């Protein structure tokens, strides 16, 4: 009897230990990957790398200025299309979507979140690139917007649902029409949360490569023409990584450091901002 109890206690504490070790393991994986990116990327990173254009192999001093600009342009196109659609769609789900029809919509939108990004790329190719006849920044932006919309819609819905009912009732009681209650009171109260959701969605699409492969493609020069192919950090990393040249590998790591710093900065600042608000 005494032995049995001992065995149970040993099992219990060893399971605590194992789950703790798993957590340490997961965090170590993160730190190893980030640490390697920081060390390797920093070796090739300098001001010139950020402001110069790519150079042919063998010529030193090449940079990724066009890819940084390209990524920013792609994100802007995606945000201009994706944010309004996502936010208003989320508003509908929160304010009018508490019935069976809303559940169906919510379900389809959730499913869209799980669609592989490469499929979104194929879709954007069929509806944008083929009719236009060429690759373009616009097609790339649209494919990123498609990835962004369901994420923004669902976070917006959740944030709006957090707004206290009393605020809605107060607005209605003061004689405000429903649309003013939703936009002027509820959406404004939830604005902070909606904005953080939008930031996270931007961080997510900034790292997408697959949807750009057959939409924005890439471009070796500085371009701001939305009707032409455009470079992006992620495509550039992919391209350099696949090349046989050592210097391009170094550039891939440096570009990765830039991209990951950008994405982590967004994630961490969102975390800090939301912690202050909800504590």
């Amino acid at each position, binding site marked *: 009897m005494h032995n049995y109890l001992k065995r149970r206690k040993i099992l219990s504490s060893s399971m605590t230990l194992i*789950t703790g070790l798993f957590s340490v393991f997961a965090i170590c994986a993160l730190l190893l990957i980030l640490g390697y990116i920081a060390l390797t990327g920093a070796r090739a990173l300098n001001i010139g790398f950020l402001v110069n254009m790519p150079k042919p192999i063998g010529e030193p001093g090449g940079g990724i200025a066009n890819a940084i600009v390209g990524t920013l342009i792609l994100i802007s196109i995606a945000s201009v299309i994706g944010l309004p659609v996502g936010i208003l769609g*989320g508003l509908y789900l929160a304010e009018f979507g508490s019935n069976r029809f809303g559940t169906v*919509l919510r379900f389809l*939108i*959730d499913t869209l979140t799980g669609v592989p990004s*490469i499929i979104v790329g194929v879709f954007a190719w069929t509806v944008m690139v083929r009719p236009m006849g060429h690759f373009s920044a616009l097609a790339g932006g649209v494919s990123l917007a498609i990835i962004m919309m369901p994420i923004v819609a669902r976070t917006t819905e959740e944030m709006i649902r957090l707004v206290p009912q009393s605020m809605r009732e107060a607005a209605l009681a003061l004689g405000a029409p429903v649309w003013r209650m939703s936009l002027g009171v509820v959406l404004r109260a939830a604005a902070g949360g909606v904005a953080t959701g939008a930031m996270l969605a931007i961080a997510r699409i900034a790292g997408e*490569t697959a949807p750009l492969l057959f939409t924005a493609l890439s471009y070796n020069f500085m371009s701001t023409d939305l009707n032409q192919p455009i470079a992006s950090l992620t495509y550039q990393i992919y391209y350099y990584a696949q090349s046989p040249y050592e210097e391009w590998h170094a550039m891939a790591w440096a570009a990765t450091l830039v991209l990951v710093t950008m994405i982590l900065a967004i994630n961490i600042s969102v975390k800090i901002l939301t912690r202050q608000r909800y504590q």
Partner: protein
Amino acid sequence: MSPASANTRRLSSFFLKRRGRLADQLFKLITLLFALAIAGLVVLMIVEMARDSTLSFDKFGPSFIWREVWDPVREQFGALPFIYGSAVSSIIGLIIAVPVSIGVAVFLVEHAPRSLSTPISFLVQLLAAIPSVVYGLWGIFVLAPLLRDTVYPRIQSAFGFLPLFKGKPNGLGLMTAGIILSIMIMPIVTAVATDVMRAVSRTQPEAALALGATKWEATWIVIQNARSGITGAVILGLGRAIGETMAVTMVIGNRPQISASLFDPSYTIASAIANEFTEATTETYRHALVEMGLILFVITFVINAFARLLVWGVTRGEAKGAHA
């Protein structure tokens, strides 16, 4: 749904109906259109892809799924090697990721104090923020050489008699892809498993503790009660793994073959599309790729739908974290 919100809904609908304000009706209609636009994309994708795979479907019919040949020159296509590669790499990913993720979730819910669980879960979620192409880069230059030089030879010297571990590993193959995938899907499995374990009732495990159960025995009750939601978390992870493109494309070796050895190069549906779509010289070739895309879409659709139903069942329709 709290009584207050039901009240507000009655109030809103009262205003919407009785006063018949045009502006309100219009507002509802406009937001509905946006919501429909997002949901409609799913339908539109299926239609477009079905239209764009007719050539391949007419030529090969359902046999496309089990044909093994992939010959763009003679225009003979079959999806089996790609389905195999997607399935096996994802399963390897799950085998590694699931125990770790559930372990982390148990630690976060049952053991860690709040001051520890918040930063840990944030750090684990940061793994999901790292872009796929970055995992691919890390996979090519760090993980693959490490596995090839130190880990795989050891596995071979111990289990080399199994057909699973035959051949000369060059680092790029199913196993490496599976290991990368396991790191990539760990955050979502952990997040959803944590949510469902937090959502189940505490009364049973606490009663068990009061009756003298050990911590692990009480935890086991929590896992039992949350098991359909945990299953949902695992299936969501599977959906992610099957659709993952860039990282897998960069480390799986991209060779359409079905080989018993996990060290051999393989190919997945997603990476075939990524590599070959812009190079598809003939219409049939492109339609074959799109048909594979459609298969991938349907698989991930079914997987996600099923997983979400399971998770919603536990978190009672609040869909907490289901979109994580």
